[in-house]
């Protein structure tokens, strides 16, 4: 079990009578990129919500870094500080870019200076340095997506979950986001990303988990380069 961030067993997630997710077993190794690929309704977002500790599965067990999750309120809050999800259709709070990116560091009780540094660093990572005072209403679709990503990165998560981060963005933003994801993985972060694009895992050197009707169809593992962060 050593080296795995998640171990999911017998996971089912139901919405009324609809079975949205039915996973027998899934292991997510640390320090790697994992792409959840599949069509609409395949269960990608549902799986990310479970992994982000936002939705308790109807049945089954989630083990995060060797700790079985009991879905207790206090525990969940601590876990959510370590795992951050970028929603498929994320929401930017009213106001400027800075107040949005500062949200995560602020709720973690960081000092003003630390929050300020975190905001600047995160915006620089997504190529939006100098956007701090810009009102979110005046951002383009691609810029908004990058601000959302910067907001997630400002939380300094151990695991970053991205739900369709490349959807509805222009070419420039797409390239920046893809390069950023690859660099985060190289630094040792675990990134789990949902995408419609079946080839993106291969292109970005990640494992691909193919989902269909809420079930895992197959997993395509990429060889781990010796000495890389994901090599254990």
């Amino acid at each position, binding site marked *: 079990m050593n080296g795995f961030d998640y171990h999911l067993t017998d996971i089912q997630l139901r919405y009324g009578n609809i079975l949205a997710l039915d996973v027998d077993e899934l292991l997510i190794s640390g320090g790697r990129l994992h792409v959840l690929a599949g069509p609409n309704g395949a269960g990608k977002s549902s799986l990310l919500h479970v992994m*982000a500790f*936002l939705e308790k599965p109807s049945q089954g067990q989630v083990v995060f870094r060797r700790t079985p999750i009991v879905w207790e309120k206090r525990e969940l809050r601590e876990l*959510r500080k370590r795992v*951050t999800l970028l*929603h498929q259709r994320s*929401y930017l*709070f009213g106001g400027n870019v800075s107040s949005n990116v500062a*949200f995560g560091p602020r*709720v973690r009780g960081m000092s003003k200076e630390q929050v300020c540094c975190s905001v600047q660093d995160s915006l620089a990572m997504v190529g939006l340095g100098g956007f701090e005072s810009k009102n979110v209403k005046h951002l383009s679709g691609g810029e908004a997506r990058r601000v959302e990503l910067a907001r997630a990165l400002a939380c300094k998560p151990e695991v970053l979950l991205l739900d369709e981060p490349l959807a509805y963005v222009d070419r420039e933003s797409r390239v920046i986001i893809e390069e950023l994801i690859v660099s985060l993985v190289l630094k040792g972060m675990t990134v789990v990303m949902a995408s419609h694009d079946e080839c993106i895992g291969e292109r970005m050197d990640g494992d691909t988990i193919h989902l269909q009707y809420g079930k895992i169809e197959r997993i395509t593992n990429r060889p781990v380069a010796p000495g890389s962060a994901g090599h254990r």
Partner: protein
Amino acid sequence: MSFFDQSLQTAFSLIFSADQDVYAAVWTSVSIAIWSIGFASLFGIPAGIGIGVGQFRLKRSLMVILNSLMAMPTVVVGLLVYGLLSRQGPMGKWGLLFTTKAIVIGQTILAIPIVANYTLSAIRAADFRIVPTTLTLGASTMQSLTQLTREVRFGILAAIIAGFGRVISEVGVAMMLGGNIRGYTRTMTTAIALETSKGEFAFGLALGIILMSVSLLINIVLTFMQESSRA
């Protein structure tokens, strides 16, 4: 000159001559309304948020009750609070009846359903992604609700404006619980009712104009606050 023109002229002379009775009634009305809406917001806003975000069995019933309470007649509130505050009532020993405090209690009860209901509507109309977004960014439940409140602040300000409009213009509670005592519990609305019944139409009209002006001014200030923070 017609009766109405004459009354209007007298009304303006009363306003501009800074008539003590007129300004005492204005001050009493405004201060009572501010206290009442302050207390009503203290209870109504959290109640509206709680009902809006909470998932519990009697939620729908509570919403129906809250809607019904919005149309509660002021004299009924006056009557109920009168019963509580009168000498024989459970709170009679505090001697609150026929004081401005009694009017504040009555008007607070009157405004709570309005503030709560408007807040509830604002919460229900809020973007459903706000709470999950705050949670995944590491917020506690309280921090998440605070951010949600921040996001719907324009709706909450509208709730306060609506509640203020209700309390400053009502007459039943002020009359029954305040007793319309000159220079003490006489509000603009009770003074209008009294002076008009005495045949002092000009005095009533002067107060009516001031009442409308004060309401307009306060609404302009609140709307300006709303717009400037939205920009």
